[in-house]
C-alpha cells in the first residue's frame, strides 16, 4: 500500500494554487486533509502526477462572521469547527455533525472543504451545507464564482467544479435565533460512513413548524434535500401521522446502494427513521 510517484507543490497563495492546477491540468490534484485522497493513492486507485498541497495558503483557513453569514475557509479542519465558538453559537448543527465525522485524529487533518468538495456521497458536510443553504466560492483561472451547495452535486464524485477550479470558502447564512436543529446519523462504528443520516433545521411558531429544511446523507449518489418531506411538516405540530408522511416522502427520493451497511430496503427504512428522529429532536430544541 504505497502511493505512486508524484511531484509535490506547495503554493502559498490561492492565485498560485489555481494557476498550478490550471497549468498542470488533469494530472494534478489538490491535497487538503488527505484522508480521502491518500488512501486512494496507496491503493493506486488514484495516481496523480502532481499534488498541490493547500496547507501553505493561510487565506484558506479560518472561520469568521460576516454580517448575517458565517464564512468558513476551505482548509478549516473539522477540529477547528469544533473549537469555534462562532460555530457553536450560530450554527450548532455543524458542531454536532463534526463530532460524528470520522475520529479525533482525522478531524485534526480533515477539512471542511475536502469534505464538501469531492462529491463523495458518504461525506456528512454536503447534506448539511445544502440544508443550511450554503454557497461555495470557487476560484478558477478566469476568476471566482459562487455556486449554491444545492446546485453543486451532480453524481457520485461528480460536481459542478470545473477543471482548474478550487473551492476557496463556504458561506453559510446564519439560521434564525431559536431555530431547532438535529443531525441524526446511523453508523456501524466510529469512522464509518452513515448507513443513513438526516439533517434538520427548522423554526417553530406557536407549537407548529414554521420553516423546515431536511437534508439526507449517503442515501443516494448525491446528498439530497427532502423538500417534499419538509413541506409535509410545515404548519404541523409533528404529530405521528405527519411524521409518518414526512418519512415516507423522504424515503421516496432515497436511492441508496446495497452494501455492507445493509440492503437498499433497510437503508431507506432507517433513512426515514433518521428523518423522523431529527425532526422530533429539532422541534424539541427549538425555542
Amino acid at each position: 500500500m504505497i502511493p505512486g510517484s508524484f511531484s509535490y507543490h506547495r503554493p502559498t497563495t490561492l492565485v498560485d494554487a489555481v494557476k498550478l492546477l490550471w497549468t498542470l491540468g488533469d494530472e494534478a490534484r489538490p491535497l487538503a486533509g488527505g484522508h480521502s485522497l491518500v488512501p486512494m493513492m496507496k491503493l493506486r486507485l488514484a495516481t496523480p502526477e502532481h499534488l498541490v498541497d493547500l496547507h501553505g495558503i493561510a487565506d484558506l483557513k479560518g472561520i469568521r462572521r460576516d454580517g448575517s453569514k458565517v464564512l468558513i475557509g476551505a482548509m478549516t479542519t473539522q477540529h477547528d469547527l469544533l473549537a469555534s465558538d462562532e460555530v457553536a453559537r450560530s450554527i450548532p448543527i455543524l458542531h454536532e455533525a463534526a463530532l460524528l465525522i470520522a475520529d479525533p485524529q482525522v478531524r485534526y487533518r480533515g477539512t471542511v472543504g475536502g469534505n464538501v468538495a469531492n462529491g463523495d456521497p458518504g461525506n456528512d458536510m454536503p447534506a448539511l451545507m445544502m440544508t443550511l443553504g450554503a454557497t461555495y466560492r470557487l476560484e478558477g483561472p478566469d476568476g471566482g464564482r459562487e455556486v449554491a451547495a444545492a446546485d453543486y452535486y451532480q453524481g457520485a464524485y461528480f460536481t459542478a467544479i470545473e477543471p482548474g477550479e478550487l473551492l476557496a470558502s463556504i458561506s453559510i447564512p446564519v439560521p434564525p435565533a431559536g431555530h431547532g436543529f438535529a443531525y441524526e446519523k446511523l453508523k456501524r462504528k466510529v469512522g464509518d460512513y452513515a448507513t443513513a443520516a438526516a439533517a434538520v433545521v427548522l423554526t417553530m411558531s406557536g407549537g407548529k413548524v414554521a420553516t423546515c429544511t431536511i437534508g439526507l446523507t449517503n442515501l443516494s449518489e448525491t446528498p439530497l434535500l427532502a423538500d417534499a418531506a419538509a413541506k409535509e411538516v410545515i404548519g404541523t405540530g409533528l404529530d405521528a401521522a405527519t411524521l409518518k408522511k414526512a418519512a415516507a416522502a423522504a424515503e421516496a427520493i432515497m436511492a441508496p446502494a446495497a452494501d455492507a451497511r445493509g440492503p437498499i430496503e433497510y437503508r431507506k427504512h432507517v433513512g426515514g427513521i433518521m428523518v423522523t428522529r431529527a425532526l422530533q429532536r429539532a422541534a424539541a430544541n427549538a425555542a
Partner: protein
Amino acid sequence: MNDMTPTREQRTAALEGMGCKRKRVEDIRFTQGKGNYVDDVKLPGMLHGDFVRSPHPHARVKSIDDSEALKVPGVLAVITAETLKTVNLAWMPTLAGDVQMVLADGKVLFQNQEVAFVVATDRYAADDGINKVKVEYEPLPPLVDPFKSMDPNAPVLREDLAGKTSGAHGPRKHHNHIFEWTVGDKELTDAAFNKAEVTIKEMISYHRTHPSPLETCQCVCSFDKIKGELTIWGTFQAPHVIRTVVALIAKLPEQKIHVIAPDIGGGFGNKVGAYPGYICAAVASIVTGKPVKWVEDRIENLTATSFARDYHMTTEIAATKEGKVTGLRVHVLADHGAFDACADPSKWPAGFFNIVTGSYDFPTAHLAVDGVYTNKAPGGVAYRCSFRVTEAAYCIERAMDILAQKLGMDPAELRLKNFIKPEQFPYHSALGWEYDSGDYGTAMRKAMETVKYAELRKEQEQMRAAFKRGETREIMGIGVSFFTEIVGAGPSKNCDILGIAMFDSCEIRMHPTGAGIARMGTKSQGQGHETTWAQIIATEIGIPADNIMVEEGNTDTAPYGLGTYGSRSTPVAGAAIAMAARKIRAKAQMIAAYKLEVHEDDLEWDIDGFRVKGLPGKFMSMKDICWAAYNSVPPGMEPGLEAVSYYDPPNMTYPFGAYICVMTIDVDTGVYKVRRFYALDDCGTRINPMIIEGQVHGGLTEAFAIAMGQEIRYDAEGNVVTGSFMDFFMPTAVETPHWETDFTVTPSPHHPIGAKGVGESPNVGGVPAFSNAVNDAFSFLGSTHIQMPHDFWRNWAAAKSLGVFASA
C-alpha cells in the same frame, strides 16, 4: 527475632509469585516504543518483497510478463511458480495434510491469491514493481457457496487432486470434498432420537471471520551463502515448528536454520500457520544473497492469511419432556477455502470439535464433519480458541437455548438440569474426552445470583408486554452461555503437528547471585509470559520474580516447544516450568542439607528456602543455595543449578465459565445496546489475576465483534467485500461494552500447579452469550434461530421477518 526480620507474608509478597497481580515487565519497553517487532528488524542491504495478487477468485493463469516490472528502478527479481519449481517449492505442505500453492501454478483459486513475488531495494520500489507485472487470466466459474461444493456439476477447483479418491483423512466423496470425519456411536444415537419425547433440529452457522491482530504477518529472511545458514525473524506463534517445517521442505539441515520470533503484535491464531510470504522471502534471500523482508498489508492479511470458522452445523438434540438430554447429533459442513490449511493438530481434521457435547451429560452423541473446497482463502485457524472449540461451544450453547424454548423452560434452568455433576469427574464424554474437573452448578448459580437473573427475567416479561401494547420499540434479550473449553494440546497420544508430539518445555538456569533465566518453547504475543512464567518459578523456588528473566522465541537458545496457541501455554508450558523448577529445588535441597549438615529428609521448604524441621533458626535461603551451587556442592555432585523439563501432559485441561449478556435492541433500526455483560471464568489456579482479567476483557471484545458483525464476506462472484477495517467490524472504545469479570477456582487435578489456561475462554463463551441474547430478545416474537453476525441491518431484517412492521 528483631523488628527487621520480614514476616512470612512479607517474604511471600517479596517473591511476587503465583496469585500476585504483578505488573508486567514487558510494559517498560512497550510503553516507550522500544519493543522489537519484525518490521523493526533492519539489516544491511535488506531488500523488500511484495506480492502480485489475483483479482479473480477462480481463473487460469495464461501468462505472467515481468519485463516491465524488471525495468522499474530498484526492482531486482520477480519470482513466480516457475522460479519456485526449480527448488521444488511451488507448493508447500499444510498443517492439515493438504498441499497449497506458494505462488499460482497454472490457476488461481481465491481472490488475492499470491501470483508473483517482486523483490526490490525498498518497499516503495517493490510496490511500483507489482503494478507493472502483467498477468493474463482466463476467468473460470467461481464456487462460493459451500453447500454447492459437492453438487454433481460443481466446478473442479483442485486439478492437482484429480483422480485422488482419498486424502490425508480418508476417502473423498467428490472432487471438491476434502474429508469426512465421524465420532461417536451412530446406532445408539439414532436409537435415542427414535425414542425421544422431544427433539430439536436447527442449522446453526458460524460465519467466516478473521483474527486480524494489529500487527500483520511478516518476516525477514537472511541466507548466509558462505555458512549455508538461514536466519528467519518472523511473527511466529510456534517458532520451533517453523524451523522444522523449513528444514523438511527446504531440505536444509535443521541446525543451520535459526528462527527468531521477536516481540509479536498480537496473534490470536493468525500467526500459527506457514504462509507463502515466508517461503518467498526465504527463496528470494537465497537467490539474491541478501536479507529480504516481507510485510503483509492489512488487506492482504484479511483476505489471504488465515480465516477462522466458516462452520455450518446442523444440530439435533433429543430430550425427555422434563428436559433431560438423551442424545446429540451434529453434522458439520466445513468450508475450508481453496486449500485445507487448518492449523489443527495433524490427526484432527475438525480440531477438537467433538467437545460439542459441552458441559452436559449426554449419554450418547454422534458427529460427522464434511470438509469441502471453495474459491476462498485457505486457513481455518483457531481465532482465540482451541481448535474449533468455539464453533462447538456456539453450536451446543445455541442448541440448548433452542431446546429450552421448545420445552418452555428457562435456558439457565435447562443447563442446571443437564450439567455434568461434580462427582462425575473425571468425566468421560460420549464423544471421547475425559474432562478433568469442574463444578458447573456452583459457577452457574453464582453468575445468576450476581446479575439477579430472576429479576432480569421479570423485567423482560414487562418489557415484552409493553412492546406488545405498542409502548416501546425496544426488546430485551438475556443471553446465557455456559461453556467448557478443552485446551492444553496436548497429550502426545492425541496430538501432534506433522508428527511432532505436542509437548512443551522449559529450561531454567540459576546464576550464583540468586538470579536466573528461564527459556521456553512458547511464544507470547501479548499474554505477558515474561511476567507470569517468572511468577511460577518464584513460588516454586523462592527467588523473586524480578530476579528471573524469561526468554522466548529464539530456537537456538530455547528448548524445543510447540508454541503458543489454543490456550496451551499455561496447561503445557506452565507445567514444564513447575517441573523444571522442582528439579532445581530438589538439587537445592541436597545442597542445603549438605551445608546445614542434616539429612535431606530433615529439611522442609519454607517460602524462599529450606529450614531444618523443628529448628526454626537453621535456615538456608534459595539465594544462598544458588551461590553454594557454584562453589561448595556436596562431594560427587556436579556444580551448577539448572534444569530442563519437557512436559507431555497426561490429559487436556477443561476450563469453564458462565457468561450472561443483557441486551436491548431497537427493532426499527436493529441497533443494539449491551446493557450488561458478566463473565465468570474458572481456569483453575490463577497465576496473575490482573493478566487473567485482561485476557478476559480482550477475548470478550473479540467475541462481541464476531457475534455482532465481524465477518469475512464474499459476494456471489467470489469477491471479498470486507477487506479493510472500514467494512471488517473492528470495534473502537466507543462501541465496546463494559465488562464485569468474576471467577471460581476448580484446579486441574493432573496439572502440577492446577492451572487450566484462560486466554481463549472469553471468545469461546462470549460468542454464544451475545448470540443467545439476540435470539432470546426475538424469541417471544416466534423465532427459534437467527444466524450470526447480528449487525444492525440483520437485526432489523429479523424483526421484519417476524412481522414487527406488519401493522405499522
